[in-house]
């Protein structure tokens, strides 16, 4: 969505509130409920979307007026940054609030309100130029051209393999055009250690891949970036995580979307594949493991009830985890020597998944 349209939506939102006040009414706003129970799977979009349940934020209700005020302020803040072409972060927004006499308990609360605004306007916050703090990275033979308005960069081209530490996935990269790509797949990697190893082992060359570091649970910018690589360049996306419930869910969120972002579309990559490390790989490759703790197990039991895990493959992996009650890190392959994962594991996986 271009900036002008986003700005128009923000203005319209402000006008609705303004008109209600002008008429002597307590302003109120209807928002689609983002509770887990209002999330349904949309087979056409192949992601989770919000159901029909609607909640109202009304200034007449003392329990809602605070969050309504916060919501109007967040819209105001977004309008300001966007009209100044000034990208900001969720953290910036949180710290800015106090200067306007708006109080948030913590950043979690302000993040929630930003998500409210996304829901009300059906606009992802990246389009308001509000980004998360954490940045993940990309490395590979892909040339992009900046479209960000900064004249120092506008129209400039750069190859994403030109910096050996990888390039940060931020607002400029997200809005850049893809000019030329010589890779034929994408590997998204959970840990920074393995990402760096893959670059030094020339995995990008050996497998003709673009490497993306998700830095744990992939930020939305990264998820959008993966989606663009998949949509626009037709590259299959493979996800490599730790062999534990948290790693498994990192893959799931990239594929099916997160409950938190069910109000937004085009953040997920439905065709992406979790290549490993699976629970069943632990046994097959006799990986060194450590026991799960109670938190791991609780999370497994919870996800077992999650509709996203109903598919037989995912259900099988969950039961396997619950059965062996052990987990393994990506690095655990190093017991077979440093290059084992590159020489043996990756080729195995690609051949079985392709």
């Amino acid at each position: 969505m271009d900036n002008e349209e986003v700005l128009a939506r923000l203005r319209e939102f402000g006008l609705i509130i303004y008109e209600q006040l002008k008429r002597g009414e307590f302003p109120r706003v209807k928002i689609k409920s983002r509770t887990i129970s209002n999330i349904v799977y949309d087979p056409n979009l192949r992601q989770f979307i919000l159901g029909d349940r609607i909640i109202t934020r009304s200034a007449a209700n003392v329990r809602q007026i605070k969050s309504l005020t916060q919501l109007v302020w967040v819209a105001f803040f977004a309008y300001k940054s966007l009209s100044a072409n000034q990208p900001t972060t969720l953290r910036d927004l949180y710290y800015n609030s106090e200067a306007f006499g708006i109080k948030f308990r913590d950043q979690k609360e302000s993040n929630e309100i930003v998500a409210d605004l996304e829901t009300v306007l059906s606009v992802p916050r990246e389009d308001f130029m509000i980004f998360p703090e954490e940045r993940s990275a990309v490395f590979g033979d892909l040339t992009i051209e900046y479209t960000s308005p900064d004249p120092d960069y506008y129209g400039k081209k750069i190859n994403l393999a030109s910096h050996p530490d990888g390039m940060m996935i931020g607002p400029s990269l997200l809005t850049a055009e893809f000019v030329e790509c010589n890779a034929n797949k994408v590997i998204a990697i959970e840990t920074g250690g393995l990402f760096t190893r893959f670059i030094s082992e020339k995995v990008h060359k050996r497998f003709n891949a673009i490497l993306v570091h998700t830095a744990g649970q992939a930020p939305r910018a990264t998820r959008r970036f993966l989606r663009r690589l998949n949509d626009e360049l037709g590259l299959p996306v493979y996800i490599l995580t730790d062999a534990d419930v948290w790693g498994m869910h990192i893959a799931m969120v990239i594929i099916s979307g997160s409950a938190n972002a069910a109000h937004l579309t085009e953040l997920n990559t439905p065709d992406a594949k979790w290549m490993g490390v699976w629970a069943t790989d632990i046994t097959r490759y006799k990986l060194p493991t450590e026991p799960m703790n109670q938190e791991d197990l609780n999370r497994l039991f919870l996800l077992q009830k999650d509709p996203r895990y109903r598919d037989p493959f995912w259900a099988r992996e969950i039961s396997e985890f619950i059965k062996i009650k052990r987990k393994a890190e990506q690095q655990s392959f190093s017991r077979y020597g440093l290059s084992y994962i590159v020489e043996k594991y990756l080729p195995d996986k690609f051949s079985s998944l392709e």
Partner: protein
Amino acid sequence: MRGSNIYQIRVEDNGCGVPKEYISSAFGRVLFGSKYVLRQTRGTFGLGGKMAILYGQITTHSPVKIITSTGGPTKYFCELMIDIQHNKPLLRRGGIKAMPNPTYWHGTIVEFTFEGDYARAKPRIIEYFKQTAIILPYANIRFIAPDGVYYYFRRVTEEMPKPPQEVPPHPQGVDVELIKRLIRRTRTRRLVDFIVASFHRVGVRTAYKFLKFARLDPKKDPRSLKSDEIVKLVKAMKRYNHFLPPDASCLSPIGPELLEKGIMKELQPEFVTAVQRKPSAYSGHPFIVEAAIAYGGKVSPPKPGEINLFRYANKIPLLYDAASDVSMKIIRSIKWYRYKIDLNMPIAFFIHIVSTKVPYKTVGKEYIADKPEISYEIEWALKTCARRLKSYLTRKARRAAVQRKLNILERYLPKIAEFSTALAGMDDPPEIDKLFRGLRSSGQ
């Protein structure tokens, strides 16, 4: 100082005074005062004052000094001791002396010495004064204590309740002795006239009907009644259901306004409400129940499991044995949650019973017996107060809720207006005052 000591006490009032001819009996004869007529009085048997004088006499063997005047040009002074063996006053030093009373002062001063332990009795004494000050808000009470502290309970009103009138006894409230006394002094010659003249609220028709019911000859001379006939008469009087109930002119309750003033002045609660029940009667004795509930302010919550209960009978505080009192039983039995009241709240209860005969359970006159007629009145008096307290608490909660809401609105609405105006690209923020207005008026 600890332990027993000799104290001198001097009590002065500005009351009606004692007529000269009654002085020696009033202060020197136990159980003085035979009553042919009834009215609400502070004492019952004429015991209290004399017991104090007697106590002084037996602990210090000194006489009581009395000065009294009914407001005429003369006041009277005497010193006397009580001849315990013969229950007779012994006047000393030339009997009752007349003294000029140029200011036309009226009242009574009593002075005597006795043995006691003020340090130990002090809390009860101060409590007694404080409670008295509540029930007599029109009285100035000054007390100079042996430890030199001066207590002054200042009156908050000059308004006094109507004094009690004397009325003849009600037929249902008499006993054989009283009938004998009434017969001795009557001038009537016929039983029917005797009954009409000597009893409260009995007319000629009722008297005839009653005597027929009692199977007694209306023309009979009352003086000729034999003992068994008098017993028969009393029994019939108790059984006969058609006497009019006693009226309350012989009673002097203090009234809800004065009671509230008294409580306000001594306890400074946040809220107080008092009610007076309509007159009622038990066994021929008229009575009126007054009750009040005070809440919050300087009223402190009771100790766990206890209840702040102030009891009064005929304007006298009852300090002892509260747990056995009928009021306490009733308070414990009421379902307070229906009134949004919790007995752990800072609440004080007040029960005042006035009657020609307060049904004390013991001779100590410390707590009141459980007469169904009285319990009923106490219960409904308390429930009426409770209902008012509930509506006060509800109003207060509603006011607080509105105020809370207003505070919240005042904090947030201007910001919503400010940011939406900026977003919408308008110059002037919308008028938001009218949104507060409705709320403000509902919070009054």
